[in-house]
């Protein structure tokens, strides 16, 4: 009985869990109001990322490309960015923030986007857009380093470090860096904070990603975090970054640069982690945890108690996706008496082995658990098909759907992207509401499976 962490021993990837860094930077950028990023690379690096966003949210998001073509790949492509910035500014008069996001190709050819930003700041912006607030932010996200997770982390830090500015007294607000979450998560987090009467700058305000179809026609979805929000992060009384690997860097930056105290993690998935989150908020703000949240938590406990021993106990689960989420889900599953026997972390971040949560798992788990880093989905499928891994449930995003479908294993879609279920972005997985959604979602997936397979389906009749 032990928990083992190891790296995938194959060099290649069969069915990836993550895409590459620029996608993470793009995901961060769409959270900012009046911001359209330019991805410096081939057109596919944008076109397909926009597509996967639209698959997940059933919405369209604006992102531009420097449209690297052959000549540019040979002779350098900075002029493409220059033109791209100008074209974007001319045609989108509201745009104030333009991150310039690099890719593998433009990092390999060595385009100096930092130098270019200086040049444009002193040239184009002064000459042509003197009366306009424009921020060009170089973001280096070579695709051959890290993953979409680290790309997101880097971009959040770069946005924060660009804007954050200490001005006057420390404000009442805290910074809440959510990590790569859904609109439903932000709604739940804001509701928890509002119950505690805590004001927060949320990075990023993405509730509007779930945008309405309005009589006046609102053609795109966009996040609502403003430049002022980002600027004010330096003045906050503290930062809570929910995810170590998605926003942790920005929290550390604010602490080291502006002495804004940082609490990083835990990812508030499950009752226990949400409790800790609230405790952290309480410590940071001095605000009490109100009766309303005791009640909200009580509703969650009540709902989940109906499920644990009778249905969830002993169920063997594999979990893949964004690393903080996977670890948070594993912790919650253990609290639910389940057995998360396989965790797949889809990149080669060397920090995972030293993650205190991983260490805790290693020290305390009473069943055989494997944590695979640099993992792909073949690590999951191969174990099921060829190595006798028995599973009762899979938790992960839609790219792994066929593992579940072809092996007749129930699956709860969770994480990014989820495109084969309707409206999942609307539901939280964090907070007490998230705990209920997850536990009930897992239970219902198992119930449906019991019925299809005629596996003690009659027990549900007298539940």
């Amino acid at each position, binding site marked *: 009985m032990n928990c083992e962490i190891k790296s995938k021993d*194959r*060099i*290649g*990837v*069969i*069915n*990836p869990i*993550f*895409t*590459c860094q620029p996608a993470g930077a793009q995901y961060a950028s769409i959270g900012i109001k009046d911001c*359209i990023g*330019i991805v410096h*690379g*081939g*057109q*596919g*690096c944008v*076109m*397909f*990322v926009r*597509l996967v966003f*639209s*698959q997940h949210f*059933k919405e*369209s998001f*604006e*992102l*531009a*490309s*420097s*449209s*690297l*073509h*052959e000549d540019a*790949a040979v002779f350098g492509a900075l002029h*493409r960015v220059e*033109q*791209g*910035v100008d*074209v*974007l500014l001319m*045609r*989108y008069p509201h745009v104030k923030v333009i991150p310039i996001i690099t*890719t*593998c*190709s433009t990092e*390999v050819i060595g385009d100096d986007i930092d130098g270019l930003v200086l040049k444009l700041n002193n040239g184009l912006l002064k000459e042509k857009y003197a009366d306009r607030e424009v921020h060009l932010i170089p973001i280096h996200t*070579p*695709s*051959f380093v890290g993953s979409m997770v680290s790309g997101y982390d880097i971009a959040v830090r770069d946005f924060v470090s660009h804007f954050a500015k200490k001005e006057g007294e420390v404000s009442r607000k805290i910074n809440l860096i959510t990590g790569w979450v859904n609109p439903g998560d932000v709604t739940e987090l804001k509701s928890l904070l509002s119950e505690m009467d805590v004001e927060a700058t949320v990075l990023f305000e993405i509730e509007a990603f779930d945008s309405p*179809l309005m*009589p006046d*026609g609102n*053609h*795109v979805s966009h996040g609502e975090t403003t430049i002022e929000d980002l600027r004010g992060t330096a003045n906050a009384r503290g930062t809570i970054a929910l995810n170590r690997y998605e926003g942790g860097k920005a929290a550390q930056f604010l602490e080291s640069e502006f002495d804004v105290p940082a609490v990083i993690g835990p990812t508030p998935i499950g009752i226990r982690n949400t409790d800790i989150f609230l405790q952290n908020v309480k410590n940071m703000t001095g605000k009490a945890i109100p009766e309303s949240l005791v009640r909200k938590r009580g509703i969650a406990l009540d709902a989940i108690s109906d499920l644990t021993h009778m249905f969830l106990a002993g169920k063997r689960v594999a979990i893949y996706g964004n690393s903080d989420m996977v670890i948070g889900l594993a912790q919650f599953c253990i609290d639910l008496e389940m057995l998360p026997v396989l965790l797949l972390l889809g990149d*080669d971040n060397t920090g995972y082995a030293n993650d205190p949560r991983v260490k805790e798992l290693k020290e305390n788990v009473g069943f055989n658990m494997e944590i695979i880093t640099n993992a792909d989905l*073949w690590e999951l499928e191969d174990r099921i098909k060829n190595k006798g891994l028995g599973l009762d449930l899979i938790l992960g995003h*839609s*790219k792994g759907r*066929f593992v579940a479908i072809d092996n007749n294993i129930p699956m709860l879609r969770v994480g990014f992207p989820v495109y084969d279920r309707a409206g999942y972005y609307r539901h939280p997985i964090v907070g007490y509401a998230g705990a209920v959604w997850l536990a009930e979602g897992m239970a219902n997936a198992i119930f449906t499976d019991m019925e299809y397979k005629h596996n003690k389906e009659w027990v549900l009749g007298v539940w």
Partner: protein
Amino acid sequence: MPYHQFKCSECIPERLKHAVDKGAGEELTDALPLGYLNTIPGTISERGCAYCGAKHVIGTPMKDVIHLSHGPVGCTYDTWQTKRYISDNGCFQLKYTFASDMKEAHVVFGAEKMLKKNIVEAFKAFPNIKRMTIYQTCASALIGDDINAIAEEVMAELPGVKIFVCNSPGFAGPSQSGGHHKINLAWLTQMVGTVEPKIYSKYVINYVGEYNIQGDQEIMKDYFHRMGIQILSTFTGNGRFDDLCSMHRAHLNVLECARSAEYICDELRARYGIPRMDIDGFGFEALSDSLLKIGYFFGIEDRARAIIAEETARWKPELDWYAARLKGIKVCLWPGGSKLWHWAHSIHKEMGVEVVSVYTKFGHQGDMEKGISRCEEGALAIDDPNELEGLEAMYSLKPDIIFTGKRPGEVAKKIRVPYLNAHAYHNGPYKGYEGWVRFARDIYNAVYSPIHKLSFIDISKDEIPTDRGFATQQMYSDVNLPEEVKNNADLRQCTSKYDPIPALREKTYCFPAPETGEWRVIPNEELSKKNSGVA
């Protein structure tokens, strides 16, 4: 001047010549936008890259192949599970994708060794698959890895294994079209002629430029097989690697999407003397003409006529039911490349819709020539459209529906223009007689969607109708329909099953023997080859 000046693009004068209005009495040559030029950066164009054109559009529909991209993981991930090119072998090509996962050290020190390991690993993971395509990406092209050399090395070491290399990095051309071109020629030069096929019919074709979106290839294959024609290979939907290696033995190349696959047809004609015949699987008349043309070529036009008669009798009453209700519907026909000319005239003639705009993301001027000549006067034609121009066009043209891709479709939805997925289809297949009816049904459902109608009400300003608890599509579509059409007992709504493809896979067909001409049954397994390759 016929050029269309978008207000949103006044500040980029070089865009002017990329859009035209098809004026009354204008010569085609007057009304031809520029096409297939480098994209203007920052326009938020809808174009993809040459890697995706090669890998995602043309390469991956091949069904018994390990598709390995040599580069960082993103190219692979991003182009995986975003299309609907199914196959009759359990969709291996949809379910599995392979990336060499190039990391920083590989960029610095070279990635050839790790590529080799990758190839071996992939074959080991799928021991039943002996065929592989390796796709170059921006990163592997820029660091200069010699993928062909590695492939040769592996093939020497692993007997029975065949590897095709496609060098088409993302930056190789203005759009995905560059990748179509590259993989066409690469397949021809590397692979064609390396396998000698089994010929079981007197009439042998390659079916080219057909990607089996939601089963298009299989619905067309049914017609060809009923004519007694052997499909030696399909380039590439539902296609087998080895079949495609024997393209040189066909008597005729039947070309569907000329935008993405005319190159290989032209080269097969030049090198092997195989004629190219452009056909069209969309639309009753175009399809009937196509089947007849192929019939004439082989001298089996009677067999074509029989199929045309049977299929028309079966499906025309359903098409006409919708046509009566779609008359005058305004359409923006905004696909990727070839569908603007595959569809423009057929939807107008057979469904009565008005094509008010055509656009192409990666088409060339030739596509525009065909598209503009086939759409209505006054139509707006746009090359390499971008987000703002698309919006401006929709606001000014007020289409009832647009046919476009998934993401632009979300933009349209927000301004209350329903969309149909022109690339992956809503509920396809759309090819064939049955498919064309399905397309008409999908258009009808979108245009007369009760929920869509509700989106036009602003509850804060408008008087809210309180007279009905629901609406059916017909309550909208039949309002102004003459009684004799409304009650025409000869017409009926679509009766196609949710998925018509599995039944086709079970059918048995006769073919005339190449030597004797004697018609005999060829077993299903031989036709579908479903037992080869993948377990």
